[in-house]
């Protein structure tokens, strides 16, 4: 699935790049289409229409389509289409194996800690709100989203478009191509990719922490009820045997704690449908069904019997 995702987003980027090189008017992910048909970046459509005080039919149609897509598939765009995670993979490639392992282990320990804690809390899961998805809040991405909107309103043009990494990625293709094909030497051939790299290094974890597009999708994703990860409690190791597992939470690319959503940095609204959790689950307990309801927990689960008695003994009874 991981390979498939790379193939989809990479293939799309390659196709659009060919369009740029061949001089087709297919545009980029910011504005894609032929002739009258056009899909605009929803955020670009909004900021452009706000700034120009225009209601553009193609902008409105794109916005409606994209909102409908997000309402059904959440942030699938991030997992399957956007080229930025591809770039992150490439840069991750240069990370030392050692460093990668340390980071992985850290995450593993963190998730296990949470699982252990939750399993030994001594409260019946059905009574405790901890494992339910926590209420969606605003986070750092929404701060950037706010700044992007505010600057658009204040200065009357889509300021974020100038630095959007998706736009910069396609601009790099165009500029490099022009350098070779037209001998068009410009400082931009260096400056544009440099800005892209700067953003990627200075703002590590761009997608999870800063991307205003992700924030935008998160806001709409709050209405999403379809194709969300759901754990089958009758199979999940944690609920069946009371042993910590949380492998699903160790792999989630959106930094969601799939097993214990309350402890994730992100809520399930941020699921990119990468299916990493589905693949990581040793018990086959995870799926992304059409209808999935709100949280992970569906109905009461009793695990108290399975909990290490020593842990229970250390608690004042009845609490």
């Amino acid at each position, binding site marked *: 699935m991981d390979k498939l995702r790379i193939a989809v987003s990479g293939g799309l980027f390659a196709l659009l790049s060919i369009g740029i090189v061949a001089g087709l008017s297919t545009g980029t992910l910011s*504005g894609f289409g032929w002739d009258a048909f056009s899909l*605009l970046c929803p955020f670009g459509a909004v900021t452009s229409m706000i700034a120009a005080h225009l209601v*553009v039919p*193609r902008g409105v149609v794109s916005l409606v389509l994209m909102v409908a897509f997000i309402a059904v598939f959440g942030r699938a765009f991030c997992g399957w289409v956007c080229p930025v995670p591809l770039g992150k993979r490439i840069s991750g490639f240069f990370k030392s194996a050692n460093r990668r392992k340390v980071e992985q282990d850290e995450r593993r320990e*963190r998730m296990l*800690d949470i699982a252990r*804690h939750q399993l030994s809390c001594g409260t019946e899961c059905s009574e405790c709100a901890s494992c339910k998805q926590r209420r969606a809040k605003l986070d750092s991405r929404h701060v950037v989203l706010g700044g992007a909107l505010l600057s658009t309103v204040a200065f009357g043009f889509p300021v974020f478009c100038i630095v959007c990494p998706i736009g910069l990625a396609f601009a790099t293709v165009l500029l490099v191509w022009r350098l070779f094909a037209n001998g068009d030497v410009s400082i931009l051939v260096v400056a544009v990719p440099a800005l892209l790299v700067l953003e990627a290094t200075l703002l590590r974890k761009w997608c999870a*922490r800063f991307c205003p597009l992700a924030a935008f999708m998160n806001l709409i994703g709050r209405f999403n009820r379809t194709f969300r990860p759901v754990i089958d409690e009758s199979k999940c190791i944690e609920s069946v045997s009371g042993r910590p597992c949380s492998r699903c939470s160790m792999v989630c690319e959106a930094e969601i704690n799939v097993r214990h959503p309350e402890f994730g940095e992100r809520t399930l609204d941020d699921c990119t449908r990468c299916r990493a959790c589905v693949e990581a689950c040793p018990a086959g307990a995870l799926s992304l069904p059409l209808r999935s309801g709100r949280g992970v927990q569906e109905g009461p689960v009793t695990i108290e019997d399975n909990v290490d008695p020593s842990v229970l003994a250390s608690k004042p009874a009845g609490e």
Partner: protein
Amino acid sequence: MSMEDGKKGARPAVDAAAVSRRTLMAAAGCSVALMGLGALKYAGTPAQLRPPGGQDEERLMAACIRCQKCFGACPRRIIVPAKLESGVLSVRTPVLSFDDSYCDWCAEENGGVPLCVSACPTEALHLPPEATAEKTIIGMAKIDQKTCLAFRDTGCRYCYDACPYDAIELRTDDGTNPRPYIIEDRCNGCGACESVCVSLTAGALASSASERAVVIRPIEKA
């Protein structure tokens, strides 16, 4: 409730509302940076040669999301991304380059309906219904008499022959060979003259200039 009161210390280090202060500060920094970038608007940007429909600079800058669609839409490949010289905020917006060809309003390829305008999804490029090629002023041709070959009596008249709008006249000043002059109220800046000018390439006569003898200049707003 037991958890919240007595056992808080037992909670794992990663707490629920774990957006770290550092991340929030960085995000706030991004917002401030975006505001700063927006404020560059007041530094002013030089006038540009825009494709048809991009003459309202205010509208173009407000609506263009730099999607690159118009670059590919132009059958003559004359729309190029603006460079840093056009101002930081203009970078990657569409400007015209007449190195190889000129703008005929897609007359040849699309019956006179500009393809760049119909391709632009945000309507940053937009023509009022009554607009015509003659009345849509992209820029103004200027001839540099120091580098123009005709002013060295070579009889060069490529630009004159190329102009689709009869905006160049040939005048014979006191018995010299004919020399081209721009008739300013006919020129719409289509770029045909610039695209054929040979002043930089005509063998021994080529000057050391970096521009062709006739170039289209943007119209500076009053």
